């Protein structure tokens, strides 16, 4: 029996309850496909995402992390995503500074009406992570060959 050696990345997607999570629902009910490698975690606002969530996801074996929130100006809580935007910019810049490929993190603004954009974003992000290969710099390096 031959092993399936094709690389299937683990992608964690933090999705805002008020937009992208509903956008993912819309993608599903519109029968738009996106890879099953994407694991969605619902958060009340993109601003809820602590930098530690992202680092922890990588540590526990994620190959890519994407944060989806409402378009700037459309936050359910008025301004949450503006703060998230600054935080994530600084965090991604720091990851780049440490020599971790910055293509493994992304922020996208996806509204509840953008099922198509959600599916396209996830497809392109998974494609990008597949091309980068497994994440070796950020993960738990124990017991792996």
């Amino acid at each position, binding site marked *: 029996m031959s092993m399936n050696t094709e690389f299937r990345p683990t992608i964690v997607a933090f999705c805002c309850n008020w937009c992208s999570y509903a956008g993912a629902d819309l993608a599903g009910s519109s029968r738009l496909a996106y890879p099953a490698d994407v694991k969605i975690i619902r958060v009340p606002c993109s601003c809820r995402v602590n930098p530690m969530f992202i680092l922890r996801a990588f540590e526990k074996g994620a190959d890519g992390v994407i944060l989806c929130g409402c378009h700037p100006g459309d936050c359910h809580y008025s301004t949450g995503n503006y703060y998230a935007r600054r935080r994530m910019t*600084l965090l991604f810049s720091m*990851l780049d500074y440490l020599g971790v490929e910055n293509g493994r993190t992304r*922020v996208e603004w996806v509204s509840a009406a953008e099922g198509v954009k959600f599916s396209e974003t996830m497809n392109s992000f998974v494609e990008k992570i597949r091309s980068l290969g497994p994440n070796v710099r950020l993960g738990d390096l124990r017991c792996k060959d």
Partner: protein
Amino acid sequence: MQRLIDRAKALLESGEVARVLGWRKGENVWDVEPAFFASPEELSDFVYNGFCGANLSKYMIEASKLEGKTLVFLKPCDTYSFNQLTTEHRVDRETAYIVGVGCKGKLKIENIDAKGILDVQGAGYPDASEILTVKTLYGDKEVSYKDAMLERCHVCKGKEHMVYDELIGESVDTCDGDRFAEVAKIEAMSPEEKFAYFQSELSKCIRCNACRNVCPACSCRKCVFDSNKFDSAQKANTISFEEKMFHIIRAFHVAGRCTDCGECSRVCPQGIPLHLFNRKFIKDIDSLYGTWQAGAEVDARGPLTNFRTDDAEPSIVTKRG
């Protein structure tokens, strides 16, 4: 130094202040430690010399909960931290009587040791441009003051006190370097080189938490790193990413509030250049959200608790390459 002691004595005796927060001589000449002095007699142990690098503003958090005023000696760079703590309502300005002390740059014993000058018994406190005479067991040795100075004094923010009740002593400008030169050098490396550089620096980390404990910006009563759910609370290294996680998060938690006082690097027993993390955030904040110096003014809104509708998107990091 005598002027500082005399002034502290006078204020203690007049009852204007209940205690003095200053530096006390330690076992060795370079082990100067922060200390409270409750009576004029205790002040005999007070010192102020080139080894008094410690930023005393953090100790004001506890002192401002005590009865009566506290006389605190602050160097120019410490006053930024004090202002930042006042802005965050961690320190009450009314409980502090601030004596701004002059600063001619602070010394790092490792730099003196590295010159082959060992068994130091004493050191003068000349101007930064001059020669430092070090008393050792083997007689007097000389070293250029600049060579013995802490890294942070080479990129000094200036010798002006941001907040004070009175000033004692003269300052001498010590700035002779570019604050962001080292950060820019690392930014120019390839991802592999960057990773290797930080891997080798951070693998020295022994998780003593000294950088966190000394940081005036790290003033949370409950710290995320004290949770036993956090990996680095376990002292044994199990995952190669744990140290990076700790240091990224430590720097992130003070981003926008860090005054770049350089205490983290000064106290690190392993000599990890921790200021490189903080300065990277400062450099990014300056370039993306406008020049910002934490603690330069009281009650200013920090860059991470503020926003503009036309801020850069996080994808700028990838584009910048």
